[in-house]
């Protein structure tokens, strides 16, 4: 119960900030909450809007699947093979911290236009955190766990399935949670360039057309979706850590 009250309070505070921003910046930069919500509802009810949503969702799902599979695989390999792990971890960490948007020309030259470039952009943003978290999780498995597994005479398969997987799972889920957010960011950025579909396109197009109502509404829809999805993932994350 208190949880709902708190969430409501946060929501009200954000709305307050939003209103304040509108009051300061005026209609030429942002539309106020009620008007934006009306426009957002109109967008959600219009047939033209949904193809953009599906374009983003499709690209995002592909990018997320690739980020997750590649990230976890690479993380496992580098985590288990210690030497490679130590060689590549700083390289990956550096890559994580550079502005990948500057690589956009390169991505476009390699992947061409359309869905594959969007997906690729999502993957270069989202894959690294998954890799780094998986790597750290595997590297930090306590030695006593593997020794326990041996003492219990578990087969390698059983060890992997019943000991190692549960031990690394919470970290991997944390990595996926961050990978989720960054993949989404990558896809949106990808859509802002060579694309005429997707929510990212709608936002940049709205900015370029000075269509404040549309831009604000799409941003609010995107932010809401991101917060809700991440809230769900956070709950999953806590659950995996037996933290609830």
């Amino acid at each position: 119960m208190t949880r709902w009250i708190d969430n409501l309070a946060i929501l009200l505070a954000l709305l307050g900030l939003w209103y304040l921003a509108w009051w300061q910046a005026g209609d030429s930069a942002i539309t106020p909450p009620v008007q934006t919500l009306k426009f957002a509802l109109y967008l959600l009810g219009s047939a033209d809007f949904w193809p953009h949503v599906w374009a983003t969702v499709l690209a995002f799902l592909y990018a997320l699947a690739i980020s997750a599979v590649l990230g976890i695989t690479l993380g496992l390999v580098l985590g288990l093979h210690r030497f490679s792990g130590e060689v590549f971890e700083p390289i990956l960490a550096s890559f994580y911290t550079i502005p990948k948007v500057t690589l956009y020309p390169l991505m476009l030259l390699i992947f061409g236009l359309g869905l594959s470039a969007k997906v690729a952009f999502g993957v270069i943003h989202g894959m690294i955190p998954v890799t780094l978290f998986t790597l750290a999780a595997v590297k930090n498995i306590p030695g006593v766990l593997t020794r326990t597994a041996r003492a219990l005479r578990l087969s390698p398969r059983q060890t992997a399935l019943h000991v190692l997987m549960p031990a690394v799972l919470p970290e991997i889920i944390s990595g996926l949670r961050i990978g989720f957010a960054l993949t989404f960011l990558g896809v949106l950025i990808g859509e802002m360039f060579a694309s005429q579909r997707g929510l990212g396109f709608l936002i940049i197009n709205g900015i370029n057309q000075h269509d404040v109502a549309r831009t604000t509404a799409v941003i609010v829809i995107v932010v809401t979706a991101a917060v809700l999805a991440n809230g769900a993932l956070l709950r999953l994350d806590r659950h995996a850590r037996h933290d609830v």
Partner: protein
Amino acid sequence: MRGVALTRLGVIAAFIALLEALCRFGIVKPLTLVAPSRMVGTLIDLIQAGDVGDDAARTAIEVAGAFVLAILLGVSIGAVIHAIPRLRRAVAPVLVSWYAVPSFVFYPLFIALLGLSEAPLIAIGAFSATPAMVVATISGLDRVPRVLRRVARVHRMGFWDTLRHITLPSALPSLFTGVKLAFAYAFIGVIAGEFILSGGGLGYAIAYAYESFETAKMYALMLLVLGVGVAVNAGLHTWEGRLLRRRQR
């Protein structure tokens, strides 16, 4: 340890050599990719001709402003959130989904609020970087051992003394992680903002070179940005190592 470092250097060198070969033997067209040696050469020419100074200075000011602002805001907000568990639980989903929102979509809003100058880009950078610092501050404060808080009381230390002698040193490792991330995100935010929306700075210069088909210049500038990013990160990493070295076994 030496072996690891050497291998790492070898991997990077091999990668550069591969790019060089791909370009030299014409497997990749010069409009797509230029050889690393030419990137470096072009970069040196650009620097000597004074063509990057203004953009680099502008970017440096923006990143530095965003970085400092993010640290100040992040630590204060983090401390407040840490002090109020209910607030913490309620804002957690907002904090973790922050990165799914491209900060530069707020550029028009920031221009309206701050005017057309470096300030909106500083705001974008700080906007991207602050949550990392908030999260690091919270986890740093979590990691202050309870027993040390009690030691502080046994020594009858007031709030500020406890902060200075107990809380900050205990939270330092975590805070430093936050500082490193804050730099990375401030840098990413500023460059991305410049790249997409602004009329100056290194990010803009890259986009401009791309638009103008000045491929060699584009890659030279990309190299500069990547180099600066990696160098500052390495610097922070070394500093962190020096600060925290003695704490580790």
